[in-house]
């Protein structure tokens, strides 16, 4: 089944594009069928339906009731391997 991943940042352009591409690569590497939904933080609420995971490239404090992973490491390169593993664990479950 296709899994829906919400990738969000402040402007929905710069950083989320990087994170979205990294998640796409990761998923094709591990044969996980995903649908990436790249939006702004403020739009998350209206796209929640059917989402398996939320990744944001900025810190959010709000709980949307969907597993959440910070994607800041995709931007900075610090701790990227760990973020990849956390995401894999959630999407494989």
């Amino acid at each position, binding site marked *: 089944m296709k899994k829906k991943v919400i990738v969000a940042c402040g402007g929905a352009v710069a950083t989320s*594009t990087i994170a979205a591409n990294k998640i796409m690569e990761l998923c094709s590497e591990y044969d996980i069928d995903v649908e990436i939904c790249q939006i702004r933080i403020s739009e998350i609420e209206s796209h929640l339906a059917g989402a398996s995971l939320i990744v944001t490239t*900025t810190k959010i404090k709000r709980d949307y009731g969907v597993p959440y992973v910070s994607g800041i490491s995709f931007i900075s*390169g610090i701790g990227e391997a760990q973020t990849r593993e956390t995401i894999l664990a959630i999407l494989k479950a």
Partner: protein
Amino acid sequence: MVKEMMNVIMNMGASSLLPTVVILLSICLGVKVGRAIYSGLMIGAGFVGIGLIVDMMNSELGTAAQAMSERFGLTLNIVDVGWQGAAPMTWASGIAAAAIPITVIVNVFMLWRGLTKTVNIDIWDIWHMAFTGAVSIVATGKLWAGILGIVVHAVVVFKMGDLWAPWIGGYFELTGLTVPHGTSACMAPIACLVDLIIEKIPGINRINFSVDKLHERAGIFAQPAVVGGIMGSGVGLLAGYRPDGAFSLGVEMAAVMVLMPKIVKCIMEGLMPLSESMKRILSKRFSGGRFYIAVDPSVLLGDSQVITAGLIFIPLTLLIAMVQPDNQVLPFGDLATISFFIAITVAVHKGNLFRILISGSVIMYITLWISNQTYLWVTELGKNSGTITGDLPVAALDQGGSPISYIYVQLFEWKNVTGFVVVGSLYLVCMIVAVYYSHNQQSEAE
């Protein structure tokens, strides 16, 4: 032979120059040929697309804004294309391709000499530095002034990275990162001065309020489509259009707001392979606790106080634009991402909304004032790069309203000297206070 090749490159036309350079540079850095060509073409697609959108926006909204201004005796007749318009214009200019190696060299040199701790791995935001170079070439016609402009701006940016790092690691809890780019970093020194003054006024210095839930309730009004729809319809009605005409302008402007970032995304995607190679090379050399990794300001836009302030500043910026004497610039393209201007300001004031409103108003006032001084350069830049074709001028709040670009170019120009001296010395004072604040913040953290 070399001369002929140079001629071919110089005559290439703006929108194909950067794609060519990116394809060649990517291949040199080990990106696969197919991927490199794809990236180059995506950049080209972004340039062509943004040209179509900006032209449509300017002819429709620009015409309506002029009609509105005539009816009400206003002067708001130049549309702000926003960063989504200004960045592609800059990237399509001849100097932008050179800006990538120039800023990398400046950064590595400063790191090597211990002059900065900021490591820039972010190729996209080089456009801010390239903008200073590009407009100084437009204003002076001198290539060396453009190259020097990029170098000067780059030095300022990397020092800004060191300056703001204590807040990025502190208030925003993004340890090891910093945000030196764009309006967020270059406007925040103003917040430091405002904070210092407020601290000295008894009574006023105790005012502190914050609105936490506002963006959850009113968040829909910050959506690009809604901002575009309201602005378009509003300006249409004020211009004396019939309601159906005003609404269709609203729909068109909603389309502009929604489509612009999607098109800009093509250019960003095209720059990614290059960005990734650079990140790999630089992070191998400069990593660990001694350095700050410089990232795009949008990492700050998820903070709830930043979102709230961004929401309030949509109408507030329009209000400032209306009351500012002789202001000609109608804020539009930057409205949905107005929080870029105040993100670090929020951290300087520790989320105190009262102070954010004061600082932010000063920041938007200065931004608007500067963008009035720079719109001719921005328009010329847009024309040279083929982004705009009509007769209507354009302005850009983001980067077109930046004190750094303005002060640098003005050193060659000396127009409106009084204004320049006022803004220049005010900014200098702000910078000094910012350095003092940054030291305090740093020692507080330790």
